[in-house]
């Protein structure tokens, strides 16, 4: 286990990730400069453009820290470099963890469990996580130009009528996803050979923490907590798991 963790936290992995992220950061700079210049050219006020930069930077600071908490949560099993890469580009914490779990089971593990992992399984899991999220990029790469052109030609059609099922479809899909996982924790907690109540207890603590955050956000108007509710609930539940580990 120690060997696996030191392998996936190797200095060379950090270097590879740093190079990839440097490329994407440079790309962001190129877009930023190009659009800034275009804004000036079409007569936009430079003060407005500068304000966009400062307001976006401050707006992003807090949610970025919550992503960092996600890196900590993921790094315990997948190491810091891969977690750093995955949460800096394309995905989000919930996608990465769910896909890592699916990939772990697909390579024959019982789940994303440290004692079952080795570096060969790790690279397969990393590949599923990477390729699995490329769908959005694929659609953008091939269809963005045509799609935006079409939308701009028929702007009224976009605004009329009640919203379609699309907006609800993603929510429904995630409800189903959560139902399957929670159902498996309930099944696992039933006393019999090989049962384990820990996942259910951890899920319950996370749900209680999340419920408290939801109450604070919706009833007490603490909207700023929204950025942290998921990562913080997870970390509270993970801390509880350490406590349960000592008792059980």
């Amino acid at each position, binding site marked *: 286990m120690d060997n696996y963790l030191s392998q996936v936290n190797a200095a060379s992995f950090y270097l590879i990730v740093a190079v990839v992220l440097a490329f994407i950061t440079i790309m962001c700079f190129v877009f930023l400069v190009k659009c800034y210049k275009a804004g000036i050219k079409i007569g936009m006020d430079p003060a407005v453009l500068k304000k966009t930069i400062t307001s976006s930077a401050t707006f992003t600071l807090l949610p970025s820290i919550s*992503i960092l908490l996600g890196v900590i949560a993921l790094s315990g099993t997948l190491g810091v470099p891969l977690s750093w890469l995955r949460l*800096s580009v394309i995905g989000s914490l919930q996608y990465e963890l769910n896909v890592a779990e699916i990939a772990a089971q697909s390579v024959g593990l019982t789940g994303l469990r440290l004692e079952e992992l080795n570096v060969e399984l790790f690279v397969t899991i990393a590949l599923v996580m990477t390729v699995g999220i490329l769908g959005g990029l694929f659609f953008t790469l091939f269809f963005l130009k045509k799609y935006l052109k079409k939308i701009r030609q028929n702007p009224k059609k976009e605004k009329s009528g009640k919203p379609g099922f699309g907006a609800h479809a993603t929510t429904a899909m995630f409800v189903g996803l959560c139902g399957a996982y929670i159902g498996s924790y309930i099944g696992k907690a039933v006393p019999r050979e090989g049962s384990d109540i820990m996942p259910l207890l951890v899920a319950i603590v996370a749900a209680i923490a999340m419920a408290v955050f939801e109450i604070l956000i919706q009833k007490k108007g603490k909207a700023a907590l929204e950025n942290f509710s998921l990562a913080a609930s997870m970390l509270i*539940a*993970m801390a509880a798991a350490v406590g349960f580990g000592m008792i059980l």
Partner: protein
Amino acid sequence: MTEREKYLEQFNNSLHRLGRVTMLLSMIILTLVPFVFGAIYGVFPDGKGFLAGYIKVAMIYLPVSLVEFLVYAPMLGVGGSYLSFITGNVTNMKIPCAMNAQDIAGTEPGSAESEIISTISVATSAIVTMLVIVAGVVLLVPLQPVLQNEMLLPAFNNVVPALFGALGLKYFAKSPKIAVIPLVLMSALCIFVPSMINQTSVLIIPSGALALAIGFILFKKDML
């Protein structure tokens, strides 16, 4: 066509070119990373395991990606879309950030000005996130021995239940009518067929399909 329109058309085309080239390059580089990781230790991703995992992931996330693309691309515009889909955290960060910037700038939705603001906003947001995470990772490195302590093993082994406990509460509270049947059925299945417990990667497919079907029926009946 006025001078301004001509310039904007040229600008838009050049943004598409830049976006496509950098996006394609990013896709190739990111896909290579696991192979390079493996090459360092002389191992290779397992093709069969990859395919089995990818099919399950694609069944869930391809439709989600399509919906996100259709809904978010018009809000983000050309540059904003390329950057957002590469740098991720679209729903929880890039969209609110771009909307907030457009609000502050007071630009009209769909106008060239609004697209420029959106791209500048998304680019800034992505750069700031990268920097914050880099700073965090630098701080995290010395903490490695603490994080790898045997005592913390239950915490990291239960990171997935922690995620779905929190996420479950959020989504079940949002759509209790959709949630009841999949949750009860999946629990019953795992209680009575214990071999399904470690097959959540398979279970999520019928459970997701069932939730989608229930959602669709409720939507048609105007009950959502």
